[in-house]
């Protein structure tokens, strides 16, 4: 159980993100919720690639004789972080547009689409 404590942290991260998405009313809080899930999943990807007592997989002036960490999760997380930037920027821009037209950020008042 103690062995995979980081995965429990990931589960809590994503749980918090889903909680804010489901129960919060303000648009900016929902955007923060999406960022929380984003970071939780990135943390999950990075913790998959760790090897005990290993160094970063770079050969320039590396201390000799030590094992190297798994490199693929780092490449995947790099891509996922930049996708996180793109989604966050777009969510905030759409929230600004909604604020421009509706004058409020509360999801209960942003309700013109009915039926």
């Amino acid at each position, binding site marked *: 159980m103690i062995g995979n404590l980081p*995965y429990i942290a990931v589960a809590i991260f994503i749980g918090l993100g889903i909680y804010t998405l489901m129960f919060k009313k303000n648009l900016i809080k929902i955007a923060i919720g999406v960022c929380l899930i984003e970071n939780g999943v990135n943390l999950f990807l990075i*913790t998959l690639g*760790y090897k005990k007592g290993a160094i970063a*997989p*770079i050969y320039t002036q590396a201390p000799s004789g030590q094992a190297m960490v798994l490199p693929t999760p780092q490449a995947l997380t790099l891509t996922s972080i*930049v996708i996180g930037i*793109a989604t966050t*920027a*777009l969510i905030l821009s759409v929230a600004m547009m909604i604020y421009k037209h509706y004058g409020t950020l509360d999801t209960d008042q942003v309700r013109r689409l009915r039926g």
Partner: protein
Amino acid sequence: MKKIIFGIAFIIFFSFLIVSAVNMRTFGEPTISEMDDYFIENAQSETGANNVVTSIVFDYRGFDTLGEATVLFTAVVGIVALFRGGKK
């Protein structure tokens, strides 16, 4: 009423996460790492770059990085398209 449905969905979802966190192999001891060992040994000879992660990002999985630079470009064009008016 909506709160109850969302509450149940949240609990089911959270139990999925906790079960997957508990069942995953222990942290720090990867059981199978053939693909990554291949990258660590052959990255220098095949791509000539010392940084194995960069050789994966740009050579072995370069199509991901092209897709991902396109994601950033789409976000920029989308944001510029959303704020294109603004004169009035």
